[in-house]
Protein backbone atom coordinates (compact mmCIF):
# COMPACT_ATOMS: atom_id res chain seq x y z
CA UNK A 1 0.00 0.00 0.00
CA UNK A 2 1.15 3.52 -0.64
CA UNK A 3 1.59 5.14 2.72
CA UNK A 4 1.18 8.69 1.54
CA UNK A 5 -0.05 11.16 4.17
CA UNK A 6 -2.88 12.29 1.91
CA UNK A 7 -3.99 8.71 1.38
CA UNK A 8 -4.12 8.30 5.14
CA UNK A 9 -6.21 11.46 5.41
CA UNK A 10 -8.64 10.10 2.80
CA UNK A 11 -9.06 6.78 4.50
CA UNK A 12 -9.45 8.43 7.88
CA UNK A 13 -12.21 10.66 6.55
CA UNK A 14 -13.96 7.68 4.95
CA UNK A 15 -13.84 5.60 8.12
CA UNK A 16 -15.03 8.50 10.23
CA UNK A 17 -17.94 9.07 7.86
CA UNK A 18 -18.95 5.44 7.95
CA UNK A 19 -18.69 5.34 11.70
CA UNK A 20 -20.84 8.44 12.12
CA UNK A 21 -23.47 7.14 9.73
CA UNK A 22 -23.66 3.76 11.44
CA UNK A 23 -23.86 5.45 14.85
CA UNK A 24 -26.66 7.65 13.56
CA UNK A 25 -28.39 4.63 12.06
CA UNK A 26 -28.30 2.79 15.35
CA UNK A 27 -30.31 5.54 17.00
CA UNK A 28 -32.38 6.00 13.90
CA UNK A 29 -33.61 2.44 14.16
CA UNK A 30 -34.62 3.07 17.77
CA UNK A 31 -36.58 6.06 16.63
CA UNK A 32 -38.29 4.09 13.89
CA UNK A 33 -39.38 1.49 16.40
CA UNK A 34 -40.50 3.55 19.38
CA UNK A 35 -41.39 6.99 18.10
CA UNK A 36 -44.77 8.28 19.21
CA UNK A 37 -45.19 12.03 19.25
CA UNK A 38 -48.36 11.94 21.34
CA UNK A 39 -46.67 10.11 24.14
CA UNK A 40 -45.19 12.21 26.94
CA UNK A 41 -43.23 9.43 28.53
CA UNK A 42 -39.55 9.63 29.11
CA UNK A 43 -38.56 7.37 26.25
CA UNK A 44 -40.20 9.74 23.79
CA UNK A 45 -38.39 12.72 25.28
CA UNK A 46 -35.13 10.83 25.06
CA UNK A 47 -35.83 9.99 21.43
CA UNK A 48 -36.62 13.61 20.64
CA UNK A 49 -33.31 14.64 22.07
CA UNK A 50 -31.61 11.96 20.01
CA UNK A 51 -32.94 13.48 16.80
CA UNK A 52 -30.74 16.49 17.46
CA UNK A 53 -27.74 14.23 17.67
CA UNK A 54 -28.59 12.49 14.45
CA UNK A 55 -29.18 15.73 12.59
CA UNK A 56 -25.88 17.11 13.79
CA UNK A 57 -24.02 13.93 12.87
CA UNK A 58 -25.47 13.83 9.40
CA UNK A 59 -24.79 17.51 8.88
CA UNK A 60 -21.14 16.80 9.57
CA UNK A 61 -21.17 13.73 7.35
CA UNK A 62 -22.53 15.82 4.51
CA UNK A 63 -19.79 18.41 4.94
CA UNK A 64 -17.18 15.70 5.21
CA UNK A 65 -18.47 13.98 2.05
CA UNK A 66 -18.10 17.17 0.07
CA UNK A 67 -14.59 17.86 1.34
CA UNK A 68 -13.48 14.29 0.88
CA UNK A 69 -14.81 14.25 -2.66
CA UNK A 70 -12.37 17.00 -3.53
CA UNK A 71 -9.62 15.49 -1.41
CA UNK A 72 -10.04 12.21 -3.28
CA UNK A 73 -9.35 13.89 -6.59
CA UNK A 74 -6.44 15.75 -5.08
CA UNK A 75 -4.93 12.55 -3.79
CA UNK A 76 -5.33 10.80 -7.11
CA UNK A 77 -3.61 13.72 -8.75
CA UNK A 78 -0.71 13.77 -6.32
CA UNK A 79 -0.10 10.06 -6.77
CA UNK A 80 0.35 10.34 -10.54
CA UNK A 81 4.18 10.44 -10.47
CA UNK A 82 4.14 6.93 -9.12
CA UNK A 83 2.47 5.29 -12.07
CA UNK A 84 3.80 4.90 -15.55
CA UNK A 85 1.78 6.65 -18.20
CA UNK A 86 -0.49 8.38 -15.78
CA UNK A 87 -0.59 12.13 -16.35
CA UNK A 88 -3.19 13.31 -13.91
CA UNK A 89 -5.91 12.11 -11.61
CA UNK A 90 -7.75 10.55 -14.52
CA UNK A 91 -4.92 8.14 -15.02
CA UNK A 92 -4.40 7.34 -11.39
CA UNK A 93 -8.05 6.48 -10.92
CA UNK A 94 -7.60 3.87 -13.60
CA UNK A 95 -4.80 2.10 -11.79
CA UNK A 96 -7.07 -0.53 -10.40
CA UNK A 97 -10.68 -1.47 -10.80
CA UNK A 98 -11.93 0.47 -7.78
CA UNK A 99 -10.89 4.02 -8.58
CA UNK A 100 -13.79 5.15 -10.71
CA UNK A 101 -16.55 3.23 -8.94
CA UNK A 102 -15.47 4.93 -5.72
CA UNK A 103 -15.70 8.31 -7.39
CA UNK A 104 -19.16 7.62 -8.77
CA UNK A 105 -20.35 6.41 -5.39
CA UNK A 106 -18.91 9.47 -3.69
CA UNK A 107 -20.86 11.75 -5.96
CA UNK A 108 -24.07 9.76 -5.49
CA UNK A 109 -23.66 9.70 -1.71
CA UNK A 110 -23.04 13.40 -1.59
CA UNK A 111 -26.25 14.10 -3.47
CA UNK A 112 -28.32 11.70 -1.39
CA UNK A 113 -26.88 13.10 1.87
CA UNK A 114 -27.81 16.56 0.64
CA UNK A 115 -31.32 15.35 -0.02
CA UNK A 116 -31.53 13.99 3.50
CA UNK A 117 -30.61 17.37 4.89
CA UNK A 118 -33.29 19.06 2.78
CA UNK A 119 -35.84 16.55 4.06
CA UNK A 120 -34.60 17.07 7.61
CA UNK A 121 -35.01 20.80 7.40
CA UNK A 122 -38.57 20.47 6.15
CA UNK A 123 -39.39 17.91 8.83
CA UNK A 124 -38.20 20.24 11.56
CA UNK A 125 -40.63 22.91 10.46
CA UNK A 126 -43.63 20.73 11.21
CA UNK A 127 -44.85 20.73 14.78
CA UNK A 128 -45.35 17.00 14.80
CA UNK A 129 -42.25 15.82 12.97
CA UNK A 130 -44.38 14.57 10.09
CA UNK A 131 -41.60 13.13 7.97
CA UNK A 132 -39.63 11.47 10.68
CA UNK A 133 -40.23 7.88 9.74
CA UNK A 134 -39.52 8.48 6.07
CA UNK A 135 -36.39 10.38 7.00
CA UNK A 136 -34.94 7.52 8.97
CA UNK A 137 -35.92 5.02 6.36
CA UNK A 138 -33.91 7.07 3.91
CA UNK A 139 -31.03 7.03 6.36
CA UNK A 140 -31.24 3.25 6.51
CA UNK A 141 -30.94 3.21 2.73
CA UNK A 142 -28.04 5.67 2.60
CA UNK A 143 -25.97 3.96 5.28
CA UNK A 144 -24.98 0.84 3.34
CA UNK A 145 -23.95 2.99 0.38
CA UNK A 146 -21.63 5.04 2.51
CA UNK A 147 -20.14 1.91 4.02
CA UNK A 148 -19.78 0.46 0.52
CA UNK A 149 -18.01 3.61 -0.57
CA UNK A 150 -15.55 3.26 2.31
CA UNK A 151 -14.89 -0.36 1.38
CA UNK A 152 -14.32 0.48 -2.27
CA UNK A 153 -12.07 3.39 -1.37
CA UNK A 154 -10.01 1.17 0.91
CA UNK A 155 -9.75 -1.44 -1.80
CA UNK A 156 -8.65 1.22 -4.25
CA UNK A 157 -5.83 2.52 -2.11
CA UNK A 158 -4.77 -0.80 -0.69
CA UNK A 159 -4.42 -2.57 -3.99
CA UNK A 160 -2.35 0.18 -5.53
CA UNK A 161 1.19 -0.74 -6.34
CA UNK A 162 3.59 1.97 -7.36
CA UNK A 163 5.72 1.29 -10.44
CA UNK A 164 9.02 1.44 -8.68
CA UNK A 165 12.35 -0.27 -8.86
CA UNK A 166 11.92 -3.23 -6.61
CA UNK A 167 15.02 -5.29 -7.11
CA UNK A 168 18.59 -4.59 -7.99
CA UNK A 169 18.04 -5.72 -11.53
CA UNK A 170 16.09 -2.60 -12.28
CA UNK A 171 12.78 -2.81 -13.96
CA UNK A 172 11.90 -2.41 -17.53
CA UNK A 173 8.26 -3.04 -17.24
CA UNK A 174 7.85 0.55 -18.27
CA UNK A 175 8.33 -0.67 -21.79
CA UNK A 176 5.66 -3.29 -21.30
CA UNK A 177 3.11 -0.79 -20.12
CA UNK A 178 2.26 1.64 -22.82
CA UNK A 179 -1.48 2.17 -22.75
CA UNK A 180 -4.41 1.99 -20.41
CA UNK A 181 -3.40 4.69 -17.99
CA UNK A 182 -3.41 7.73 -20.14
CA UNK A 183 -5.66 10.66 -19.67
CA UNK A 184 -7.45 10.18 -22.90
CA UNK A 185 -11.01 9.83 -21.97
CA UNK A 186 -13.88 8.68 -23.99
CA UNK A 187 -15.47 11.90 -25.08
CA UNK A 188 -18.44 12.68 -27.24
CA UNK A 189 -17.95 15.01 -30.19
CA UNK A 190 -17.47 18.54 -28.94
CA UNK A 191 -19.69 20.64 -31.18
CA UNK A 192 -22.66 18.29 -31.01
CA UNK A 193 -22.34 18.14 -27.25
CA UNK A 194 -22.22 21.91 -27.07
CA UNK A 195 -25.57 22.14 -28.84
CA UNK A 196 -27.08 19.48 -26.60
CA UNK A 197 -25.78 21.24 -23.50
CA UNK A 198 -27.31 24.58 -24.33
CA UNK A 199 -30.49 22.96 -25.57
CA UNK A 200 -31.13 20.95 -22.45
CA UNK A 201 -30.12 23.85 -20.22
CA UNK A 202 -32.60 26.10 -21.97
CA UNK A 203 -35.40 23.56 -21.44
CA UNK A 204 -34.41 23.08 -17.81
CA UNK A 205 -34.32 26.77 -17.02
CA UNK A 206 -37.59 27.34 -18.84
CA UNK A 207 -39.41 24.59 -16.98
CA UNK A 208 -37.91 25.83 -13.73
CA UNK A 209 -39.14 29.36 -14.27
CA UNK A 210 -42.54 28.01 -15.25
CA UNK A 211 -42.67 26.02 -12.06
CA UNK A 212 -41.56 28.96 -9.99
CA UNK A 213 -44.28 31.19 -11.35
CA UNK A 214 -47.14 28.75 -11.84
CA UNK A 215 -46.35 26.08 -9.29
CA UNK A 216 -46.92 23.33 -11.84
CA UNK A 217 -44.49 20.75 -13.06
CA UNK A 218 -42.30 20.36 -10.02
CA UNK A 219 -41.51 16.74 -10.77
CA UNK A 220 -40.73 17.57 -14.36
CA UNK A 221 -38.27 20.20 -13.30
CA UNK A 222 -36.64 17.86 -10.79
CA UNK A 223 -36.19 15.20 -13.47
CA UNK A 224 -34.93 17.84 -15.84
CA UNK A 225 -32.37 19.10 -13.37
CA UNK A 226 -31.09 15.56 -12.81
CA UNK A 227 -30.78 15.14 -16.55
CA UNK A 228 -29.03 18.50 -16.79
CA UNK A 229 -26.58 17.39 -14.13
CA UNK A 230 -25.60 14.32 -16.12
CA UNK A 231 -25.45 16.29 -19.36
CA UNK A 232 -23.23 18.87 -17.66
CA UNK A 233 -20.82 16.22 -16.43
CA UNK A 234 -20.56 14.73 -19.89
CA UNK A 235 -20.21 18.24 -21.33
CA UNK A 236 -17.34 19.07 -19.03
CA UNK A 237 -15.47 16.06 -20.31
CA UNK A 238 -16.52 16.59 -23.89
CA UNK A 239 -16.05 20.27 -24.63
CA UNK A 240 -15.97 22.58 -21.64
CA UNK A 241 -12.60 21.25 -20.51
CA UNK A 242 -11.18 21.82 -23.98
CA UNK A 243 -11.91 25.52 -23.75
CA UNK A 244 -10.52 25.82 -20.27
CA UNK A 245 -7.31 24.03 -21.11
CA UNK A 246 -7.19 25.63 -24.57
CA UNK A 247 -6.16 22.25 -25.91
CA UNK A 248 -8.30 20.17 -28.25
CA UNK A 249 -7.22 16.87 -26.78
CA UNK A 250 -7.29 17.49 -23.06
CA UNK A 251 -10.58 16.13 -21.81
CA UNK A 252 -9.70 15.48 -18.20
CA UNK A 253 -12.43 16.71 -15.83
CA UNK A 254 -10.11 16.68 -12.83
CA UNK A 255 -7.32 19.00 -13.87
CA UNK A 256 -9.63 22.01 -13.70
CA UNK A 257 -9.61 21.85 -9.93
CA UNK A 258 -5.86 22.21 -9.90
CA UNK A 259 -3.80 25.27 -9.20
CA UNK A 260 -2.79 25.89 -12.79
CA UNK A 261 -6.35 26.58 -13.76
CA UNK A 262 -7.02 28.86 -10.81
CA UNK A 263 -9.07 26.22 -9.01
CA UNK A 264 -11.89 26.98 -11.42
CA UNK A 265 -13.19 23.46 -11.08
CA UNK A 266 -14.27 24.03 -7.49
CA UNK A 267 -16.61 26.80 -8.50
CA UNK A 268 -17.97 24.88 -11.46
CA UNK A 269 -18.61 21.70 -9.54
CA UNK A 270 -19.98 23.47 -6.47
CA UNK A 271 -22.53 25.29 -8.60
CA UNK A 272 -23.46 22.08 -10.35
CA UNK A 273 -23.83 20.00 -7.21
CA UNK A 274 -25.79 22.71 -5.45
CA UNK A 275 -28.11 23.00 -8.41
CA UNK A 276 -28.85 19.30 -8.65
CA UNK A 277 -29.39 18.79 -4.90
CA UNK A 278 -31.87 21.65 -4.69
CA UNK A 279 -33.53 20.51 -7.91
CA UNK A 280 -34.03 16.94 -6.80
CA UNK A 281 -35.06 18.23 -3.37
CA UNK A 282 -38.20 19.55 -5.02
CA UNK A 283 -39.21 16.05 -6.06
CA UNK A 284 -38.37 14.70 -2.62
CA UNK A 285 -40.61 17.20 -0.85
CA UNK A 286 -43.49 17.65 -3.28
CA UNK A 287 -45.39 14.51 -2.19
CA UNK A 288 -45.82 16.06 1.25
CA UNK A 289 -47.43 19.33 0.31
CA UNK A 290 -50.73 18.22 1.78
CA UNK A 291 -49.37 17.30 5.17
CA UNK A 292 -51.17 19.34 7.81
CA UNK A 293 -48.28 20.57 9.85
CA UNK A 294 -46.20 21.52 6.84
CA UNK A 295 -48.87 23.27 4.83
CA UNK A 296 -47.87 26.70 5.97
CA UNK A 297 -44.32 26.57 4.77
CA UNK A 298 -43.69 23.73 2.39
CA UNK A 299 -44.83 25.45 -0.76
CA UNK A 300 -42.72 28.46 0.03
CA UNK A 301 -39.72 26.30 0.77
CA UNK A 302 -40.09 24.30 -2.42
CA UNK A 303 -40.24 27.52 -4.38
CA UNK A 304 -37.09 28.68 -2.68
CA UNK A 305 -35.39 25.43 -3.67
CA UNK A 306 -36.49 25.96 -7.25
CA UNK A 307 -35.14 29.48 -7.23
CA UNK A 308 -31.83 28.35 -5.77
CA UNK A 309 -31.53 25.61 -8.34
CA UNK A 310 -32.31 27.99 -11.20
CA UNK A 311 -29.83 30.58 -10.03
CA UNK A 312 -27.10 27.98 -9.63
CA UNK A 313 -27.71 26.49 -13.06
CA UNK A 314 -27.79 29.95 -14.59
CA UNK A 315 -24.53 30.87 -12.91
CA UNK A 316 -23.02 27.63 -14.12
CA UNK A 317 -24.08 28.34 -17.68
CA UNK A 318 -22.78 31.90 -17.44
CA UNK A 319 -19.41 30.68 -16.21
CA UNK A 320 -19.18 28.06 -18.94
CA UNK A 321 -20.13 30.57 -21.61
CA UNK A 322 -17.59 33.03 -20.26
CA UNK A 323 -14.88 30.39 -20.49
CA UNK A 324 -15.86 29.50 -24.03
CA UNK A 325 -15.96 33.10 -25.18
CA UNK A 326 -12.67 34.15 -23.58
CA UNK A 327 -10.78 31.02 -24.52
CA UNK A 328 -8.09 31.15 -27.17
CA UNK A 329 -9.36 27.91 -28.55
CA UNK A 330 -11.87 27.99 -31.35
CA UNK A 331 -13.55 24.79 -32.39
CA UNK A 332 -14.59 25.59 -35.90
CA UNK A 333 -15.04 22.07 -37.11
CA UNK A 334 -15.00 18.64 -35.64
CA UNK A 335 -11.79 16.68 -35.77
CA UNK A 336 -11.81 13.09 -34.70
CA UNK A 337 -8.82 12.23 -32.59
Amino acid at each position, binding site marked *: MILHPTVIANLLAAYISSFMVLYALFYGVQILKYWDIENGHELQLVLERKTYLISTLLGYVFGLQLLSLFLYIFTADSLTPLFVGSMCAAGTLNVDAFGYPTLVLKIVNFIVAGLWLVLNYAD*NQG*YDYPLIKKKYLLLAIIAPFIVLETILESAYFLSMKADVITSCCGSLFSSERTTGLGSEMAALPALTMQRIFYGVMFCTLASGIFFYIKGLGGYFYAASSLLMFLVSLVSIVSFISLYIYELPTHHCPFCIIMEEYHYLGYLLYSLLFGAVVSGIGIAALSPFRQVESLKHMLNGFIRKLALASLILYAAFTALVTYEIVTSSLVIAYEVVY
Partner: protein
Amino acid sequence: MIELVNVKKVFNAGNPSEFSALNSVNLLIEENQVTVLKGPSGSGKTTLLSIVGCMSRPSAGRVKLQGREITSLPERFLTDIRRKTFGFIFQQPNLIKGISVLDNVMLPAYPLGEKRVHLKNKAMKGLAALNIANKAASKVEWLSGGEAQRASIVRALINDPYIIIADEPTAHLDTKLSYRFMEIIETFKAEGKTVIITSHDPLVYDSSMVDRVVNLRDGQIEV
Protein backbone atom coordinates in the same frame (compact mmCIF):
# COMPACT_ATOMS: atom_id res chain seq x y z
CA MET B 1 -55.91 31.02 29.26
CA ILE B 2 -53.73 28.19 30.51
CA GLU B 3 -55.55 24.92 30.99
CA LEU B 4 -54.22 21.71 32.46
CA VAL B 5 -56.37 18.62 32.10
CA ASN B 6 -55.53 15.46 34.04
CA VAL B 7 -51.84 16.20 34.00
CA LYS B 8 -49.43 13.63 35.41
CA LYS B 9 -45.66 13.79 35.63
CA VAL B 10 -43.61 10.72 36.41
CA PHE B 11 -39.83 10.59 36.77
CA ASN B 12 -37.67 7.51 36.28
CA ALA B 13 -40.56 5.49 34.92
CA GLY B 14 -40.09 1.75 35.08
CA ASN B 15 -37.26 1.97 37.61
CA PRO B 16 -37.46 1.11 41.27
CA SER B 17 -36.94 4.80 41.94
CA GLU B 18 -40.05 5.71 40.00
CA PHE B 19 -41.55 8.84 41.42
CA SER B 20 -44.76 10.59 40.58
CA ALA B 21 -44.43 14.36 41.00
CA LEU B 22 -47.88 15.30 39.80
CA ASN B 23 -51.01 13.18 39.99
CA SER B 24 -54.04 14.09 37.95
CA VAL B 25 -53.85 17.86 38.17
CA ASN B 26 -56.68 19.92 36.74
CA LEU B 27 -56.08 23.62 36.69
CA LEU B 28 -57.29 26.71 34.87
CA ILE B 29 -55.32 29.90 35.14
CA GLU B 30 -57.20 33.08 34.30
CA GLU B 31 -55.91 35.96 32.29
CA ASN B 32 -54.70 39.19 33.87
CA GLN B 33 -54.73 37.73 37.34
CA VAL B 34 -52.10 37.06 39.96
CA THR B 35 -52.22 33.37 40.90
CA VAL B 36 -50.14 31.94 43.72
CA LEU B 37 -49.27 28.26 43.97
CA LYS B 38 -48.76 27.39 47.60
CA GLY B 39 -47.53 24.19 49.16
CA PRO B 40 -44.79 22.49 51.16
CA SER B 41 -41.58 21.34 49.53
CA GLY B 42 -41.99 18.10 47.65
CA SER B 43 -45.55 18.97 46.70
CA GLY B 44 -44.70 19.31 43.06
CA LYS B 45 -44.84 23.11 42.83
CA THR B 46 -41.75 23.48 40.71
CA THR B 47 -42.79 20.65 38.41
CA LEU B 48 -46.23 22.19 37.96
CA LEU B 49 -44.68 25.55 37.27
CA SER B 50 -42.35 24.16 34.68
CA ILE B 51 -45.22 22.44 32.85
CA VAL B 52 -47.36 25.58 32.97
CA GLY B 53 -44.44 27.59 31.66
CA CYS B 54 -43.79 25.28 28.70
CA MET B 55 -40.49 24.17 30.07
CA SER B 56 -41.29 20.50 30.18
CA ARG B 57 -43.92 18.11 28.94
CA PRO B 58 -46.35 16.09 31.06
CA SER B 59 -46.16 12.32 31.10
CA ALA B 60 -49.90 12.18 30.59
CA GLY B 61 -52.76 14.61 30.27
CA ARG B 62 -53.22 17.74 28.18
CA VAL B 63 -52.00 21.30 28.32
CA LYS B 64 -53.65 24.12 26.42
CA LEU B 65 -52.35 27.64 25.99
CA GLN B 66 -54.86 30.21 24.75
CA GLY B 67 -56.94 27.30 23.48
CA ARG B 68 -54.08 25.80 21.48
CA GLU B 69 -52.97 22.32 22.45
CA ILE B 70 -49.29 22.29 23.27
CA THR B 71 -48.94 18.94 25.00
CA SER B 72 -46.99 17.11 22.35
CA LEU B 73 -45.20 19.95 20.67
CA PRO B 74 -41.55 19.18 20.00
CA GLU B 75 -39.00 21.16 21.95
CA ARG B 76 -38.26 23.49 19.08
CA PHE B 77 -41.79 24.82 18.95
CA LEU B 78 -42.30 24.77 22.68
CA THR B 79 -39.23 26.91 23.14
CA ASP B 80 -40.40 29.32 20.49
CA ILE B 81 -43.73 29.75 22.25
CA ARG B 82 -42.07 30.03 25.61
CA ARG B 83 -39.70 32.73 24.41
CA LYS B 84 -42.52 34.92 23.20
CA THR B 85 -45.09 34.18 25.89
CA PHE B 86 -43.37 33.64 29.19
CA GLY B 87 -40.89 35.54 31.30
CA PHE B 88 -39.22 33.58 34.08
CA ILE B 89 -38.01 34.91 37.39
CA PHE B 90 -36.15 32.31 39.39
CA GLN B 91 -35.39 31.94 43.06
CA GLN B 92 -31.80 32.86 42.38
CA PRO B 93 -31.19 35.69 39.95
CA ASN B 94 -29.32 33.12 37.83
CA LEU B 95 -27.29 35.66 36.00
CA ILE B 96 -24.24 34.55 34.04
CA LYS B 97 -21.08 35.61 35.80
CA GLY B 98 -18.30 37.24 33.89
CA ILE B 99 -20.43 39.21 31.45
CA SER B 100 -22.06 42.56 31.95
CA VAL B 101 -25.56 43.20 33.15
CA LEU B 102 -26.56 44.49 29.74
CA ASP B 103 -25.36 41.34 28.01
CA ASN B 104 -27.17 39.21 30.54
CA VAL B 105 -30.38 41.08 29.95
CA MET B 106 -30.16 40.74 26.18
CA LEU B 107 -29.38 37.02 26.30
CA PRO B 108 -32.90 35.62 25.81
CA ALA B 109 -33.27 37.56 22.58
CA TYR B 110 -30.11 36.33 20.91
CA PRO B 111 -31.68 33.35 19.14
CA LEU B 112 -34.24 35.65 17.57
CA GLY B 113 -31.56 37.57 15.73
CA GLU B 114 -32.93 41.05 16.29
CA LYS B 115 -30.81 44.00 15.29
CA ARG B 116 -28.34 44.85 17.99
CA VAL B 117 -29.22 48.53 18.14
CA HIS B 118 -32.91 47.85 18.76
CA LEU B 119 -32.17 45.20 21.31
CA LYS B 120 -29.81 47.41 23.19
CA ASN B 121 -32.38 50.19 23.34
CA LYS B 122 -35.02 47.85 24.69
CA ALA B 123 -32.64 46.55 27.30
CA MET B 124 -31.59 50.01 28.45
CA LYS B 125 -35.21 51.08 28.73
CA GLY B 126 -36.00 48.05 30.82
CA LEU B 127 -33.06 48.70 33.11
CA ALA B 128 -34.07 52.32 33.50
CA ALA B 129 -37.62 51.35 34.45
CA LEU B 130 -36.24 49.42 37.40
CA ASN B 131 -33.64 52.03 38.30
CA ILE B 132 -30.51 50.06 37.51
CA ALA B 133 -29.55 51.70 34.22
CA ASN B 134 -26.35 52.99 35.80
CA LYS B 135 -25.24 49.40 36.35
CA ALA B 136 -25.63 48.37 32.73
CA ALA B 137 -21.95 47.95 32.04
CA SER B 138 -20.91 46.45 35.37
CA LYS B 139 -20.20 42.81 35.84
CA VAL B 140 -22.95 40.97 37.66
CA GLU B 141 -20.68 40.04 40.55
CA TRP B 142 -20.75 43.66 41.65
CA LEU B 143 -24.52 43.86 42.10
CA SER B 144 -26.28 43.73 45.43
CA GLY B 145 -28.97 41.11 46.03
CA GLY B 146 -31.82 43.45 45.18
CA GLU B 147 -30.13 44.81 42.10
CA ALA B 148 -29.44 41.31 40.83
CA GLN B 149 -33.06 40.40 41.34
CA ARG B 150 -34.14 43.44 39.39
CA ALA B 151 -31.70 42.64 36.62
CA SER B 152 -33.17 39.19 36.29
CA ILE B 153 -36.63 40.74 36.10
CA VAL B 154 -35.51 42.98 33.23
CA ARG B 155 -34.14 39.90 31.51
CA ALA B 156 -37.47 38.15 31.94
CA LEU B 157 -39.21 41.06 30.23
CA ILE B 158 -36.88 41.52 27.27
CA ASN B 159 -39.10 39.70 24.79
CA ASP B 160 -42.31 41.41 25.94
CA PRO B 161 -43.98 38.33 27.35
CA TYR B 162 -47.56 38.56 28.59
CA ILE B 163 -47.25 35.89 31.26
CA ILE B 164 -44.75 36.26 34.10
CA ILE B 165 -43.74 33.23 36.13
CA ALA B 166 -41.87 33.64 39.40
CA ASP B 167 -40.56 30.74 41.46
CA GLU B 168 -40.13 31.59 45.16
CA PRO B 169 -39.06 35.12 44.26
CA THR B 170 -38.80 36.42 47.81
CA ALA B 171 -36.87 33.46 49.23
CA HIS B 172 -33.60 35.40 49.38
CA LEU B 173 -34.90 38.90 49.84
CA ASP B 174 -35.42 40.91 53.02
CA THR B 175 -38.78 42.44 53.92
CA LYS B 176 -38.15 45.80 52.30
CA LEU B 177 -37.03 44.23 49.04
CA SER B 178 -39.93 41.79 49.17
CA TYR B 179 -42.39 44.66 49.34
CA ARG B 180 -40.59 46.34 46.48
CA PHE B 181 -40.92 43.14 44.50
CA MET B 182 -44.66 42.96 45.08
CA GLU B 183 -44.93 46.53 43.86
CA ILE B 184 -43.30 45.48 40.63
CA ILE B 185 -45.80 42.64 40.34
CA GLU B 186 -48.57 45.19 40.75
CA THR B 187 -47.29 47.16 37.79
CA PHE B 188 -47.32 43.98 35.71
CA LYS B 189 -50.94 43.41 36.61
CA ALA B 190 -51.74 46.99 35.71
CA GLU B 191 -50.13 46.46 32.31
CA GLY B 192 -52.50 43.59 31.62
CA LYS B 193 -50.03 40.78 32.17
CA THR B 194 -50.81 37.47 33.86
CA VAL B 195 -48.65 36.51 36.84
CA ILE B 196 -48.09 33.07 38.36
CA ILE B 197 -46.05 32.82 41.55
CA THR B 198 -45.04 29.92 43.73
CA SER B 199 -44.32 30.84 47.27
CA HIS B 200 -44.62 29.83 50.86
CA ASP B 201 -43.97 33.37 52.04
CA PRO B 202 -47.10 34.85 53.71
CA LEU B 203 -45.98 38.25 52.54
CA VAL B 204 -46.72 37.02 49.06
CA TYR B 205 -49.81 34.91 49.34
CA ASP B 206 -51.52 37.17 51.84
CA SER B 207 -50.94 40.20 49.68
CA SER B 208 -54.00 42.14 48.59
CA MET B 209 -53.24 41.98 44.88
CA VAL B 210 -53.32 38.21 44.76
CA ASP B 211 -56.45 37.03 43.01
CA ARG B 212 -56.24 33.32 43.65
CA VAL B 213 -54.30 30.91 45.81
CA VAL B 214 -53.94 27.29 44.74
CA ASN B 215 -52.92 24.79 47.40
CA LEU B 216 -50.75 21.92 46.32
CA ARG B 217 -50.01 18.82 48.35
CA ASP B 218 -48.39 15.57 47.25
CA GLY B 219 -48.80 16.32 43.60
CA GLN B 220 -52.45 17.17 43.78
CA ILE B 221 -54.50 20.29 44.18
CA GLU B 222 -56.33 20.57 47.43
CA VAL B 223 -59.79 21.89 47.10
